[in-house]
């Protein structure tokens, strides 16, 4: 009977190290953070010294035009960036999922952008976007085009930030998609070749559906990360011009360090958290609902027999 207990404990044994570490090093600080969102707390104070203000931070934020603006910018940024990256990353993975010489070198080349420190990436792009000495404008000018105000008008700045982020983070999608692709059952691929699938059809009907579990998770993780992008934008535009590229995480970080309002920053990130949770729950339950529906349909079909 002892073994039965061990059985039931097994999952917990597997989970324990992760759970313990996350509990003490993540959940616990997050708990603090959530508590902090009800405080008027500046970072020079210890948390005990901060004043409890209830929901004030949350309420203030709702009427804070800049916050709302950056909320909107964030969503716009995340959606644009993640769609582009998914498209490019998966495409690139599909393109490189073949047996050619020098593959691992190529892969490494494509993963490179992700490996450069974000701060350096930011500086590098800032240099490339430089109105006069930057490579883009210089090239444009040498070809006789008007230079583009990369960082100095709102729309272009947004586009510039998106480009830099896509450049840096497409490899993330790429590498995970590639790993997923390589884990696919080869026999199904062979079968589809026999069944007459062209390369595209193979991608659409076999590869993508089979990669889907990984793709969904990748999408989710990238989406979450897109909401957290900080350094590159900080260096590139510092949120400007105006608020055109001030995404929420930048605002949060500025609120915490520049404005020294930890409580408010915490409240902001809780709003972000709520948004992301809604998104995740949405996806999660949609999945569950689809599964349930499929099961129901199947059951109905079986009962018909």
């Amino acid at each position, binding site marked *: 009977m002892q073994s039965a207990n061990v059985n039931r404990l097994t999952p917990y044994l597997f989970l324990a190290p992760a759970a313990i570490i996350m509990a003490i090093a993540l959940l616990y600080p997050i708990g603090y953070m959530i508590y902090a969102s009800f405080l008027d707390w*500046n*970072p*020079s*104070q*210890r948390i005990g010294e901060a004043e409890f203000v209830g929901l004030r931070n949350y309420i*203030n934020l709702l009427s804070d035009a*800049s916050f709302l603006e950056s909320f909107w910018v964030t969503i716009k940024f995340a959606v644009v960036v993640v769609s582009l990256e998914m498209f490019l990353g998966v495409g690139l993975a599909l393109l490189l999922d073949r047996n050619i010489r020098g593959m691992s070198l190529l892969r490494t080349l494509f993963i490179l952008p992700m490996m450069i420190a974000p701060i350096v990436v930011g500086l590098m792009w800032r240099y490339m976007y*430089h*109105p*006069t*000495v930057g490579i883009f404008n210089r090239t444009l000018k040498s070809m006789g085009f008007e*230079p583009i*105000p*990369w*960082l*100095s*008008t*709102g729309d272009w*700045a947004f586009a510039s930030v998106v480009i830099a982020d896509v450049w840096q983070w497409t490899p993330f999608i790429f590498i995970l998609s590639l790993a997923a692709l390589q884990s696919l059952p080869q026999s199904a691929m062979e079968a589809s070749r026999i069944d007459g699938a062209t390369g595209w059809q193979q991608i659409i009907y076999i590869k993508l559906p089979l990669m889907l579990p990984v793709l969904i998770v990748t999408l989710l993780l990238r989406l979450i990360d897109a909401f957290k992008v900080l350094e590159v934008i900080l260096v590139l*535009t*510092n*949120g*400007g*011009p*105006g*608020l055109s590229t*001030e995404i929420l995480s930048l605002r949060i970080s*500025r609120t915490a*360090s*520049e*404005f*020294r*309002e930890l409580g408010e920053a915490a409240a902001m990130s809780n709003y972000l958290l709520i948004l992301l949770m809604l998104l995740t729950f949405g996806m999660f339950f949609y999945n569950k609902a689809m599964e349930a529906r499929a099961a129901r349909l199947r059951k109905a079909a079986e009962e018909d027999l």
Partner: protein
Amino acid sequence: NPYEPYAGTTLVINVPAHPHYNAMMKVLPAFTEETGIEVEVDQLQYLKMRERQTLELTKDEGDYDLISYVVFSKADYVFADQLENLARFFMNPKLADPNYEAEDLIDGYVANIGVAGGKKGYLPGPTGSLFGIPFGSETSVLAYRKDIFEKHGIATPETYDQLLDAACKIPELEPGMGGMASRAASGHQASHAFLLHLAPLGGRVFDDAWEPIINNEAGVAAANALKTIVDCGPEGSQTFGPAEAAAAFQQGQAAMFMDSIAFAAGFEDPSKSKVVGNVGYALHPEGVRRGSQTGGFGIAIPKNAQNKEAAFLLMQWLTSKKGDLMVAMAGGNPSRFSTYENAELNAKYPYSATFGEALKYADPDWRPIIPTWGKINADIGTTMSQVLTEGLDPQEALDGVAERARAIMDEAGYYTWQ
């Protein structure tokens, strides 16, 4: 020997990555040799340094014995009771150097950087006391291209009218060259650039009763001045941070540059600058009054420091006449009148005299140093960026800033006594 009891101690000091402190590093060995006190330096980028200090100072036992702080941290640290009141040390005959000559320290700096508790809380006054000593202080001066100005017969701008005039004339006279390179990037940079003009043009952010007056005529004039400068500036100025602005000037893409004196060294460095020898320095032009910015760093002893006495000795040594001169000779920014007048220094850095002169007009109150400033500053910065890039009307923009600033001040309790 006052240093005797502390010989062998190792002090840990936290300073920013900044030319002045690079200079300080060169003279530290002399200090160690003289006193037997070892010094370990932890150098951080100045905003990161501030973040780190904020956290560090909350500890019971801190790592740092002496910290260098950015001006606007003064309010936070003092408010949180994290800095030692220096009176304690100056009162101690075993520590205080009788030949320190405190009156030689540039008073604008001392007021701006060192003292808190007086009038408005962040400036000297009958209730104020000293928490830090300026070390690596800066003010704004106008750097201009002597060659260009001479070539076109433009006089060195003395007033804002002349300044703006020159700024927009140069692009016409010298195609491809901007008038003046200025910071303008959204956020702190745009705000900084705006405030640079606000004080000389007679404006203030708040009046004495903490009511925002940033949107008065002077404020609008300052905003317009900045807009003019940026519009006539080199290409893409709207996004310049100080580094790009300085680079533009160094590369000869702008004829003027008005910012901290700390940039001067770079203009004279041939590995970075193409305009070595062609740069002239002048006082910050006069608007309705003279009012150059004050800024830079001070040094202070944290409450949670481990070796406070030795730290004080180092602080005193560094800011003494001798120390100040040594650091200045190594490329730092002096904080003493006497240093600026020093012949040797002027021989090495010809612009020193101008700088010394500029310091006399340094305005310690060009911006408020209060805990809510971070937020207001950011708001000014974003709004000014909108003025510069999106064509927002200055008056409207500043009205908005004033309104939001008032709300912030109100919430922070500044109107409690009204």
